[in-house]
């Protein structure tokens, strides 16, 4: 057997190939250059892949996260090591730049699996991870998406634009059908 990797993300159509190629290239290079059987090395590389996606404003994670009904961001992340079943998760983050990195710290440096909201933010500061004002994560596109969702009185999956170009009837609940 050999290594394998898969990733998913939501991005505008015109940007999908370049973004996915970039992320996939990072993953391939990392796996190709670290073939030793050290789980930790592989996992550290894996974390980096998700950080790469979070930092791209076209993905609904980190900068570019979609907005709550109050116009705020509340980010979530999870990470899990299949060999040990060790895992870490965070919710309700408003200032942490890379949520998945904080999830990893929860896994490695606490006796718990899951921290949320004020507790997670406090843990982030205690650990010294990068934080910014929450306005950093809010993009004009997502302000517009929230306006559209409120106008339609719907809660929507993050990416909605291409729904009209596919040959499939719309669903009655107003949700887009793009993962």
């Amino acid at each position, binding site marked *: *057997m*050999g*290594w*394998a*990797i*898969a*990733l*998913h*993300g*939501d991005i505008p159509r015109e940007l*999908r190939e370049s973004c*996915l*190629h970039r992320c*996939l290239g990072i993953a*391939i290079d990392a796996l190709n250059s670290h073939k030793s*059987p050290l*789980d930790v090395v592989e*996992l550290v590389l894996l974390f980096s892949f*998700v950080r790469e*996606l979070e930092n791209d404003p076209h993905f*609904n*994670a*980190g900068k*570019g996260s*979609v*907005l*709550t*009904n*109050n116009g705020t*961001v*509340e*980010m*979530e*992340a*999870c*990470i*899990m090591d*299949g*060999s040990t*079943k060790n895992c870490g*998760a*965070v919710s*309700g983050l408003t200032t942490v730049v890379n949520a*998945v990195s904080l*999830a990893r710290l929860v896994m490695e440096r606490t006796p718990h*699996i*899951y921290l*949320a909201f004020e507790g997670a933010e406090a843990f982030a500061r205690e650990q010294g991870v990068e934080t910014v004002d929450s306005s950093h994560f809010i993009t004009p596109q*997502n302000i517009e998406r929230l306006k559209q*969702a409120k106008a339609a009185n719907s809660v929507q*999956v*993050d*990416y909605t634009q291409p729904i009209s170009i*596919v040959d*499939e009837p719309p*669903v009655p609940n107003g*949700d887009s*059908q*793009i*993962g």
Partner: protein
Amino acid sequence: TVGCVAVDSSGNLAAATSTGGLVNKMVGRIGDTPLVGAGTYANKFCAVSCTGKGEEIIRATVARDVAALMEYKGLTLKEATDYVIKESTPKGTTGLIAVSATGEVVTPFNTTGMFRACATQDGKTQIGIW
């Protein structure tokens, strides 16, 4: 939502998922992503990361179901994910990416599309939406 699953050449698996959630979600809402076994899971059989409507993914415990079908019923990764995506979750709600310990990769979804990419050590790569 973004996610990544990987297996190394020794069969070690890992999964990670990160998201901002749903547009216009209520303040305080928690989705499937951080819930281990719902939107994210990894064990010695497979690693799974999900995207879509979190409430449905939580109800179906999607990621753990895939692993359980492999562990307890002996299904392949494709068989397990096909069952979960086609039979366990409502159409239009769920997508996932997964790799097995033997290097099998699947990216099924019952939504109209899912932005996805994958690569294997033998040189195969794929990028897709629909």
